[in-house]
């Protein structure tokens, strides 16, 4: 019989910072986006800050009003990615079936495990010894992923909870909120509430037919979920699906309607996207552009262009979209992503001389920037542009770990 462990680090970015700097331990800290302290949000709050009500995604001013003594620490993605890698290295000693769910969360499947509790204790011990004594994780053990994740969320920090079978699962499910289960978000909970369903006990009484009528195929998932049943497979980190889109967004240091400034930022973002596409040997044809105004309202637009991995082509499409949707308000944030991706194959290769030379220029620029650092060689129009710092997607969408 298979056993699934869900391992979730507690207040991950914050505890890694506290591990690095013991002077931060036991204090309320908030990790912010990169080296920016203004116009950013709390990326992660320490256990101590959470006691004051500080939460991830909260604006800095709000965090400071709740906890005036909060210490803000600039986020350092290299530090967190390296810690995750070290932790995955430990897990691969126990099972090859390790799924990276996000930067601080993994599922691990072990076969015929007679002592999952001992295994969990060993993992905790090795994390303490090899990653750091301040870094703790909560482990949930169960017979499928959903129940393991629920078990892991029941006791934090440094918890260890086992949900042994479906009987135990139903006992627990009857005592938690609908949205405490991974797979029931705000919208589904609201729809269930509108049907008069406020608990898993009630959900179990709803006939499958009624759920299918309301939620289509997801009705079956909900039906099974309320009984602690799920047919979920572990997707090992080395078999992770290829990305579906590549994008970047940037919150500007000040609200602006300076089109030259926006043009520079946009070109920089599209160059970053194009380089990542080229690194992954991908091309995309759907360009999505979005902007947020100073009052947090926003617009977005999608355009289809011929398959490309060239920053200028992506820029041209986003610039067109920008002019179509911008209502001359001051802008706070812009973002671009490219989707509808396909692999670069010989059939994509061009025989047109002018396109060929552009490809050679891009390849040469990539070589130089790979050696000397991002934007060491760049378009003249970008000279003097503001620095854009890359932060990892917490879900590590485009990252495969090489251990």
């Amino acid at each position: 019989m298979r056993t699934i462990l869900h391992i979730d680090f507690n207040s991950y970015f914050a505890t890694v910072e506290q591990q690095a700097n013991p002077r931060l331990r036991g204090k309320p800290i908030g990790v912010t986006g990169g080296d920016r302290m203004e116009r950013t949000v709390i990326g992660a709050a320490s256990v101590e800050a959470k006691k004051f009500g500080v939460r991830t995604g909260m604006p800095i001013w709000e965090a400071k009003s709740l906890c005036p003594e909060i210490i803000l620490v600039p986020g350092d993605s290299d530090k967190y990615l390296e810690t995750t890698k070290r932790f995955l290295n430990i897990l691969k000693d126990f099972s090859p079936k390790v799924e990276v769910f996000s930067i601080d969360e993994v599922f691990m499947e072990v076969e015929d495990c007679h002592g999952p509790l001992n295994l969990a204790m060993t993992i905790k011990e090795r994390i303490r010894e090899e990653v750091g004594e301040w870094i703790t994780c909560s482990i949930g053990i169960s017979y499928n992923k959903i129940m393991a994740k629920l078990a892991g969320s029941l006791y934090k920090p440094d918890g260890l909870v086992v949900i042994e079978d479906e009987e135990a699962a139903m006992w627990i499910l009857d005592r938690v909120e609908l949205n405490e289960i991974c797979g029931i978000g705000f919208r589904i909970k609201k729809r269930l509430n509108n049907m008069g369903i406020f608990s898993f006990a009630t959900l179990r009484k709803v006939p499958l037919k009624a759920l299918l009528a309301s939620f289509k195929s997801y009705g079956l998932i909900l039906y099974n979920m309320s009984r602690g049943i799920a047919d979920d497979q572990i997707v090992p980190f080395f078999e992770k699906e290829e990305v579906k889109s590549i994008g970047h967004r940037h919150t500007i240091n000040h609200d602006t309607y300076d089109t030259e400034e926006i043009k520079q930022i946009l070109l920089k973002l599209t160059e970053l996207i194009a380089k990542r596409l080229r690194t992954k040997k991908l091309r995309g044809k759907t360009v999505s552009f979005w902007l947020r105004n100073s009052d947090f309202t926003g617009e977005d637009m999608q355009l289809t262009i011929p398959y490309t991995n060239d920053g200028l082509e992506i820029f041209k499409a986003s610039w067109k979209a920008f002019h179509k949707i911008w209502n001359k308000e001051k802008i706070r944030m812009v973002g671009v992503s490219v989707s509808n991706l396909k692999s670069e194959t010989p059939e994509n290769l061009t025989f047109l001389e002018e396109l060929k030379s552009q490809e050679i220029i891009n390849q040469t620029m990539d070589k130089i920037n790979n050696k000397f650092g991002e934007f060491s060689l760049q378009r003249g129009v970008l000279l003097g542009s503001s620095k854009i710092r890359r932060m990892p997607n917490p879900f590590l969408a485009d990252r495969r770990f090489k251990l």
Partner: protein
Amino acid sequence: MLSIQEPINVWVFFKGSLIQPWCFFWKARQIKVDKVNLVHTSKDGSNTFYHFSISSGGNFYRLKFDTNKLKWFLEALEEE
């Protein structure tokens, strides 16, 4: 925490396949490393840097080793 970027001299020792700073010299002081709390790497182009977050007498320092130039820097500190 104060961020700086000062070249420093570091005495290190090798333990197995790992390199560990033993002490470093900064502002005419010899600062002994009590504990290495965390080691991580970063890249700038093809150049790799090792960052050692360390404790010494209740103070915090972060040392950076540039693998290309084989030079050490003190990049951050927080003292009593």
